[in-house]
């Protein structure tokens, strides 16, 4: 049945490969020559491209950019927390407080902060409010098309910085007051070992168990102050609670927020020297386990959600709406709620005919019309085909009379 190909037909819808091919390739060549710019490196997408200024409008770049910026914003969230609630900085935790500023291409660390800035994230806050940072931020946004209206979410405004400094100052004063009142050598705000009075603490360390408040307690908000009858204990003021006269026992806890509840219950009882169990093993164990389980289950759920999403069929696929409807119908039919309805004999699938130009509905209409004309012809021919028996003239005459 298959015959040899003879030539092109005049159907405008038909495509011919051979002549078209050359046109496409020449167009491509032209396009390449037009761009002709040098290769640049895009830090957002982490690739070299020669698309010049056009690159920042490409969807892939936009995706990577939004991912990048949201990552940076989440890093800033911590810093912003400390902006609102200044807290004392601990040297061992300072090393955890650094981040890479993508706009300035610089590592912002807390280590080596000056004497006056011994609050958490002070370096970060100073950096984010600086003029240089703003400049590099603007340049970055311009270069990578980030949207100049979002600048404020990546920097800290001067007003906020002044507020923060005031808060720090008040904290400092309060700490200083409590320091005077305290027996112990140390109730200062900082663990700055360069400070003279602190050296006293080091000496006392053998004798006393000094416990330091941690960043984690800040994360949980308000912490009730606990008083220890143990005079040897020297403590630091909690942030939200503010400094109190007397000592505040707080345990060395990890930065796990849930563990904080443990402090409340165990704080009054004891410490290492009194033989009490560490907080993360005791009653906090339940909360810790719960927290872990919760986080794990959340992770699993999100992962399974992701998997489900990827398995979901593309809503843009051909006939998606029809398929969904039909699935529901079949479900209902299975359950017996809807009687299986026989599709009417006139149903035709969505079909685009060969000589059709225009939408597929046109082809169906055409076909319907053709059908009707065919039917008419058939009925007409049927009528005309009716054979009648011969009646003689005489009988006809008689019948007429």
């Amino acid at each position: 049945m298959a015959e040899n190909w003879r030539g092109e037909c005049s159907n405008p819808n038909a495509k011919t490969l051979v002549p078209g091919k050359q046109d496409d390739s020449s167009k491509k060549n032209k396009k390449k020559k037009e761009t002709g710019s040098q290769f640049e490196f895009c830090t957002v997408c982490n690739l070299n491209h020669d698309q010049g200024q056009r690159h920042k409008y490409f969807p892939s770049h936009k995706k990577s950019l939004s991912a990048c910026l949201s990552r940076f914003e989440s890093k800033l969230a911590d810093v912003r927390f400390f902006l609102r609630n200044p807290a004392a900085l601990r040297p061992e935790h300072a090393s955890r407080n650094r981040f890479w500023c993508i706009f300035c291409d610089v590592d912002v660390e807390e280590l080596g902060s000056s004497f006056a800035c011994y609050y958490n994230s002070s370096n970060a806050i100073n950096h984010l409010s600086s003029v240089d940072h703003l400049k590099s931020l603007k340049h970055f946004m311009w270069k990578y098309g980030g949207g100049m209206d979002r600048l404020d979410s990546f920097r800290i405004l001067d007003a906020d910085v002044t507020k923060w400094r005031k808060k720090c100052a008040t904290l400092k004063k309060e700490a200083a007051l409590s320091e005077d009142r305290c027996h112990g050598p140390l109730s200062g705000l900082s663990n700055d070992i360069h400070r003279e009075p602190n050296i006293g603490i080091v000496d006392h360390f053998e004798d006393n168990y000094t416990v330091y408040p941690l960043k984690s307690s800040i994360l949980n908000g308000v912490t009730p102050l606990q008083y220890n009858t143990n005079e040897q204990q020297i403590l630091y003021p909690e942030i939200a609670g503010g400094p109190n006269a007397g000592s505040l026992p707080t345990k060395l806890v990890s930065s796990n927020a849930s563990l904080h509840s443990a402090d409340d219950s165990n704080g009054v009882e004891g410490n290492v020297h009194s033989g009490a169990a560490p907080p993360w093993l005791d009653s906090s164990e339940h909360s810790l386990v719960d927290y872990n389980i919760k986080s794990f289950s959340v992770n699993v759920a999100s992962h399974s959600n992701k998997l489900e999403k990827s398995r979901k069929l593309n809503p843009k696929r051909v006939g998606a709406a029809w398929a969904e409807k039909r699935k529901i119908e079949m479900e209902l039919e299975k359950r017996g709620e809807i009687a299986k309805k026989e599709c009417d004999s006139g149903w035709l699938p969505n079909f685009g005919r060969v000589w059709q130009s225009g939408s597929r509905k046109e082809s169906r209409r055409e076909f319907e019309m053709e059908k009707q004309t065919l039917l008419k012809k058939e009925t007409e021919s049927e009528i005309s085909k009716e054979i009648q028996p011969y009646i003689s003239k005489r009988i006809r005459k008689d019948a007429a009379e």
Partner: protein
Amino acid sequence: MSYVLTTLTKKREVDSVIRDTIDKVLVLRFGRASDAECMQLDDILAKSAREVSKFATVALVDIDSEDVQVYVKYFDITLTPSSVFFFNAHHMKMDCGTADHTKWIGAFRRKQDFIDVVEANYRGAMKGKLIVNCPLPPERIPRYQLLYKDM
């Protein structure tokens, strides 16, 4: 070989096959089982039907059946065997470099050709395209001459 695949003789049956195949490519072969080229095509279809079963269904339609003539006219089937592709009751066109994009006319040379064609249809359909390009090189596409309309 048509013992392996379902042969449809009524419009109702064809309708139900089209409507019940959801999210899978439906290949409807229109032809006569006794015809040599059709037999060749049926052989390929039967052998590859299982392999593409996860994303395609194959059904045979007898062109000589009275009930199905409506479809023969609607789909403009003149040369046999013809294979029409559907996805979710929507017709999938394929540009093979021939005049007629609405169907595949003739047999396939190899099983792999058929599988490639079906895969191309499936991928295009999943992306929302109603017309896809044929992945086969021109030498493996059966050639034919299409008469003009109303001639």
